[in-house]
């Protein structure tokens, strides 16, 4: 054993030398992990293949399409930074603006109602009536209203749900609600377009600009100057709402169809533009709807009856649509409350005349 001891020491020394040499080589190699602080020579640039690949597909400069066998618009683009731009726009601008607009409009309506308590009938009810909307018009109105409210609710869930609903319900429940909302929204969208076309056909002839509309706007529908401005079948405010519904509604429908059927060659910028227009237009229309609902219900006494029974009190017509009321009275279209009551009883309705004044029978 003693004879082998120097040999073993030599072997260990040789092995140690080889290991040290390898360690020195590693330190000198470009793959050395540590930086050389205060080193005399600059470190060689380390290229991370993963980072390079990520930079390539992220395409910070401009969209670049790679080669792929998948057919479809932009199918060669792995990651498009514009998606991030849309996300930022939605989260940082559109959703806060939506909330501010909704809250603002609701606040103005509430303030107005608290101050003015709505518009009352100046001369009370006359007990005589005029037919304002036929049954087909009322069905059409409520059809569009029902479909739009459904679309508005599901659309708002899709637009603001991540901010509003996730903190309340959590991710799992929200994913279910969002999936249902998306299916429902896509399904009912085309039904809104059909209703919109129906509205256009039925009401366009009464909504062209006419003499007196400018005056109506200048007096803000009677809020400025005190006296109620003159108006025909529709006043200027109603006409503005009609054209807003038509134009914004058609824009919503067109952009909705572009988004729902993305296989007709729509490119990414068109889809993004459609998303922005769809979101902004919908928010505007929903805000307008708040005002429309208020004016049609609590904001104006006896207005809702025109869309439920179809008949309005003559005093209501004289106050808000004096030109139309005069024309109807000249034609002898006024129906006395008792006659309307009999007429509707003949048709099988006892309680159709809204808020009839007390009669001898009634007393």
């Amino acid at each position: 054993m003693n004879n082998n001891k120097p040999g073993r020491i030599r072997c260990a020394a040789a092995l140690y030398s080889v290991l040290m040499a390898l360690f020195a080589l590693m330190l000198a190699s470009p793959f050395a992990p540590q930086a050389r602080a205060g080193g005399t020579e600059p470190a060689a640039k380390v290229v991370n293949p993963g980072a390079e690949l990520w930079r390539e597909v992220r395409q910070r400069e401009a969209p670049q399409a790679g080669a792929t066998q998948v057919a479809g618009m932009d199918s060669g683009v792995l990651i498009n930074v514009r998606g991030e731009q849309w996300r930022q726009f939605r989260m940082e601008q559109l959703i806060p603006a939506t909330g501010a607009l909704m809250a603002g409009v609701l606040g103005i309506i509430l303030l107005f109602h608290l101050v003015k308590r709505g518009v009352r009938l100046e001369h009370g009810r006359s007990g005589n009536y005029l037919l304002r909307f036929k049954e087909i018009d009322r069905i059409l109105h409520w059809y569009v209203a029902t479909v739009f409210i459904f679309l508005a609710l599901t659309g708002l869930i899709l637009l603001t749900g991540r901010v509003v609903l996730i903190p309340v319900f959590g991710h799992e429940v929200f994913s279910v609600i969002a999936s249902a909302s998306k299916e429902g929204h896509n399904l009912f969208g085309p039904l809104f377009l059909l209703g919109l076309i129906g509205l256009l056909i039925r009401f366009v002839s009464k909504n062209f600009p006419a003499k007196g509309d400018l005056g109506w706007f200048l007096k803000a529908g009677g809020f400025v100057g005190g006296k109620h401005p003159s108006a025909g079948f529709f006043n200027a405010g109603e006409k503005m709402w009609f054209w807003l519904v038509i134009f914004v509604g058609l824009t919503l429908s067109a952009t909705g169809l572009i988004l729902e059927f993305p296989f007709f060659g729509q490119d990414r910028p068109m889809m993004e533009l459609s998303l922005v227009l769809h979101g902004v237009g919908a928010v505007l229309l929903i805000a307008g709807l708040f005002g429309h609902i208020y004016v049609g219900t609590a904001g104006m006494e006896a207005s809702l009856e025109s869309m439920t029974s179809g008949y309005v009190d003559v005093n209501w017509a004289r106050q808000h649509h004096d030109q139309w009321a005069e024309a109807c009275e000249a034609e002898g279209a006024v129906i006395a409350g008792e006659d309307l009551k009999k007429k509707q009883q003949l048709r099988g309705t006892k309680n159709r005349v809204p808020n009839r004044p007390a009669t001898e029978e009634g007393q």
Partner: protein
Amino acid sequence: MITAFIEGPLWYFALLVFLIGVAWRMFAIVRSGSKPDFSVPRRSVAVSAVMTSLRRFVPRHEMSPRIRLHVVAGYMFHLGLFALLLFAAPHVLFLQENLLGFGWTPMPYWAFILVSQIAFAGLLILWLHRLLNPVTRLISDADDHVAAVLTFVVMLTGCLALMEAFTGLRVLHRFTVELLMIYFPFSRLMHAFTFIPSRAYTGALFGRRGVDA
């Protein structure tokens, strides 16, 4: 647990109520009978029954202008609902796996969407007509409105679950279907089974007397 209850005991209960209820209602109608008529038949009773059953699919000429919307919406809804019920892919699969043991070719996806939109539009128009027309409003009661709303909810939950990605949505649809099945025999929804016998009976009765019905 709720899912298991809806897909298990409640499903069998609903099916039982539906089948027994419908059978009981139909049996009650048949058993009520009619007064014996000893007069000589003016026309063939069978032919009159068949002819009236078919003729009632088209409104009488005199009535057409007044009920055009009602008829169009009625066909939109009923044909749409019939197509959805029997030819929607998930329904065909469900019937095959759970009830019948065989299936048939379902509608393609695009047809499902189109048909459901037609059915929804029809149902909505019919319901609004019921509410806004003075006559239909007067002859309607809570049963009609409950049936309309329940049918709408069943169709809606079915369409919301279209992606078939979430068990919760499917179970919700199934729950509403079970509610409808339990409600069905006790409501005017029974007209789905009685409309042909009713037409046939009227046709036979009037045919025997030699009167057009």
